């Protein structure tokens, strides 16, 4: 059993919630009921789930253009995320964010940052504040392999290292930056190898194994909380869907997809639990029912919610401004 003593069923439920939420989003998008584009997280659920399981509301997670998984794992309610996707006034951003900017500061998730690499410097600032305020909080910056080649990420990793910031940089390496394969953009095999250049630990984790992620994150987060400084944690994973809704996936092979499908994280955890007799089929079915009910409720809530007024567009340009 791993050191971090993982709450197996909770991890399973969170991953399944993300999966079912997004499958439903995809369906609703195809039906034309969601106006937004969607960058789905299907296949990568173990990363957000394993990392966020250690975080409190006073810890921050900064996400990307692919943020639904982080939002759910961080505790943003499925209702408020779904309402945002439906562009409703009750959405977590009041209809001003959309799919790429979901978040809720009350649970430690600022609006997701949809400029690739853009969240890493901000994560440094949030971690600096946590350190200065001495509140024991940590900040997680999530980004993909594509973002790892942005200058902003380089500046941020260096600053986090020199100031020993309580930050964890989680690189979700899903092997493709949109359609560009990892090997096209990197001369090295592991993004984590770059950590040495900044003077921080770099670790490679099986990002499709929620227990491995959970354990690695436990160590990195504990280290950050105790003043030990930042970690670059590379989680090797795979998007089982397109980059966005307009992506027909013609740049990867069916064989590659099939190989990764075998390793997808939710079925994998279920299999591990079954193998060790840690769960019954009945229990798994119950979890599925509860999750589906949560998604049904979120969709019903979103559909019943009012649209924003057109002129609501004028509000909130400045903080404290009503109109």
């Amino acid at each position: 059993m791993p050191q971090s003593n993982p709450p197996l069923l909770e991890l399973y439920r969170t991953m399944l919630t993300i999966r079912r939420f997004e499958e439903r989003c995809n369906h609703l998008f195809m039906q034309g009921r969601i106006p937004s584009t969607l960058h789905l997280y299907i296949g990568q659920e173990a990363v957000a789930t394993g990392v966020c399981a250690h975080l409190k509301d006073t810890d921050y997670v900064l996400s990307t253009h692919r943020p639904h998984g982080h939002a759910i794992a961080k505790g943003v309610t499925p209702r408020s995320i779904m309402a945002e996707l439906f562009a409703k006034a009750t959405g977590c951003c009041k209809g001003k964010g959309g799919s790429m900017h979901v978040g809720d500061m009350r649970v430690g998730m600022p609006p997701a940052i949809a400029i690739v690499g853009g969240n890493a410097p901000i994560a440094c600032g949030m971690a600096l504040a946590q350190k200065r305020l001495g509140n024991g909080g940590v900040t997680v910056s999530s980004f993909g392999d594509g973002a790892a080649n942005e200058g902003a990420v380089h500046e941020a990793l260096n600053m986090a290292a020199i100031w020993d910031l309580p930050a964890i940089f989680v690189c979700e390496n899903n092997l493709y930056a949109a359609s560009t394969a990892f090997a096209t953009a990197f001369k090295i095999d592991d993004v984590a190898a770059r950590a040495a250049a900044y003077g921080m630990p770099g670790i490679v984790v099986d990002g499709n194994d929620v227990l491995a992620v959970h354990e690695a994150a436990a160590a990195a987060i504990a280290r950050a909380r105790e003043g030990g400084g930042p970690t670059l944690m590379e989680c090797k994973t795979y998007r089982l869907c397109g980059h966005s809704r307009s992506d027909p996936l013609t740049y990867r092979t069916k064989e590659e997809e099939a190989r990764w499908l075998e390793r997808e994280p939710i079925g994998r955890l279920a299999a591990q639990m079954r193998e060790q007799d840690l769960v019954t089929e009945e229990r798994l079915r119950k979890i599925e029912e509860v999750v589906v009910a949560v998604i049904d409720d979120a969709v019903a809530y979103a559909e019943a919610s009012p649209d924003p007024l057109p002129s609501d567009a004028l509000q909130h340009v400045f903080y404290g401004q009503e109109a």
Partner: protein
Amino acid sequence: MAKMSIAEALRQAIREEMVRDPRVFCVGEDIGVEGGFGGAFTVTLGLSEEFGHERILDTPISEIGIAGVAIGAAMAGLRPIADVQYGDFLFCMMDQLVNQAAKMTYMSGGTVSVPMVMRAPVGSTRRGAQHAQSLEAFFTHVPGLKVVAPATAYDAKGLLKSAVRDDNPVLVFEHKLLYGSKGPRSEAGALSPVGEVPDEEYLVPIGKGIVRREGSDVTIVGKLLTLYRALGAAEKLAAEGISAEVIDPRTLVPLDRELILESVRKTGRLVIVEEDNLTGGWAADIAAIVAEEAFFYLDAPIVRVSAPDTPAPFAPVMEAFYVPSEERVIEAVRSTL
């Protein structure tokens, strides 16, 4: 009352705000190094001895990082005063300022605030094209940013203090020829206006312009260095019996539109002076506002006095041609009469 330069007034504002509020801190390049410059123009000189290096935080040469750190720290409960050595370097951090700082509150449906200050020196000062630009107009175009441009010591202190207390990102543009920086950081050709600054606490509200000189024949709007060009021109025009009213907007966003409109309704003529390039500029926007709101009060076409649409040249003779001069302002005023 004490007499001080703008650099001294800014330093005093920072010191007072840091004493008042432990959340306030400075972040930037070369701002707290012992034996260093106190920032490019001496504004933070001596502050690291007083407040320590945690609160006068020196950074690597990482402008994207500086902006991101300021934004994140502001979102998470601190009150950063960030700076760049030259305003031109703001272009290195445009994503952070424009996509992140300016839009965070909006994207969050009004729930997240970014109470940060970014200070930036502007203006052409014999350094060639990449250390010379007047960037104010770029940022007035971005919803979600407040923009101030103080031209006197009194305003520099009062506006910076207001900026620190504002719950939004505020860009403070300072002109290199107006700092009055001393020693090796002093500037050739500086005006170094030394002004009276009260001993007691005061704030200059963001969003309020001021009439610097009253007049009845023509309104001249100028900011930063060009305010002094406008005032010099007004003085010379007065000798010819032409009465010019000079307005210093002080804040560019939100703009004190009514102050300008009221003046134009009175004088019927408008000249706008700016050091930025002409096309798509700030002067164009002021002209458009007046054309829309006070067209029937105008007795002559509005005139813009701007830098030409070229990069800032280096050679002092070309630079003097590039930056609007008193003579050009006087000519512009004459053309309206």
